[in-house]
């Protein structure tokens, strides 16, 4: 069996990113949309760590740390938004959320 090279990790990361973007484009449930975005962030993180190992540089891991922090803040604000929208419209179907006001 051939040894695992960086290309394997790039391919896995691309596939995971693609599944996440398909989820964002095809699903209508706002919460599942959010989860798909989290998965896309995660595939980028995987690539950061793989290249940190490949290049022997610790900076990739530090960057992943920052990405995780931003993702945590994003999830908190995004879920608060979803709860606020659900209170006014009683739905989180993104096809029904088409007004800036009301």
């Amino acid at each position, binding site marked *: 069996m051939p040894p695992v090279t960086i290309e394997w990790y790039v391919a896995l990361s691309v596939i995971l990113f693609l*599944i996440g973007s*398909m989820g964002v484009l095809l699903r209508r*449930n706002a919460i599942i949309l959010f*989860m798909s975005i989290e998965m896309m962030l*995660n595939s980028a*993180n995987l690539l950061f760590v793989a290249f*940190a190992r490949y290049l*022997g540089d610790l900076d990739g891991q530090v960057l992943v740390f920052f990405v995780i922090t931003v993702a945590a803040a994003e999830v908190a604000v995004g*879920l608060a938004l979803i709860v606020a929208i659900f209170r006014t419209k009683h739905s989180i179907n993104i096809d029904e959320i088409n007004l800036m006001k009301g």
Partner: protein
Amino acid sequence: MGNPIVFLILAGVAIVAAIMMVTSRNAVYSALWLVLNFSAIAIFYLLLNAPFIAMVQITVYAGAIMVLFLFVIMLLGAEQLRGVTAAIGGERWQQVLAVFSGLLLLGTMGILVFQGMGDGGDTAVTINSSPAALGVRLFEVYTFPFELTGILLLAAMIGVAIFSFKKKKKEES
């Protein structure tokens, strides 16, 4: 950079979990599949000599963030979306366009992956990536971004508090 068999098994688990997450009709199942996906990626981090990031992945992503997701899903009762029975929604042309652009992305990435980086081989460099080394790098080189992260988290916290506070006042009046 890891044993090929271990890599393939883990990659299979991660991809199957990702596909199940996107196609599940019940949002709770989606969240649980996502936990499995995050755990598989955490094991990848261990394989890639990043133990601290792996533990952060488990505690922050698979722990805190997914608990928040499950909490909101169950709070809203949004397991199954009202009015939408199919897992995949939207107009027909939107679906076709989405799949087409996805395939386009996959094609371009495939060309880049399998033609662009030619050197191949297991040339991974082993570095000291203990939590202590990571902390030294974080506080010596990336001090300012680290401080900015604190401000970002504070802003997010205040934003969420304002959201819930405003709603409460509106309901009273």
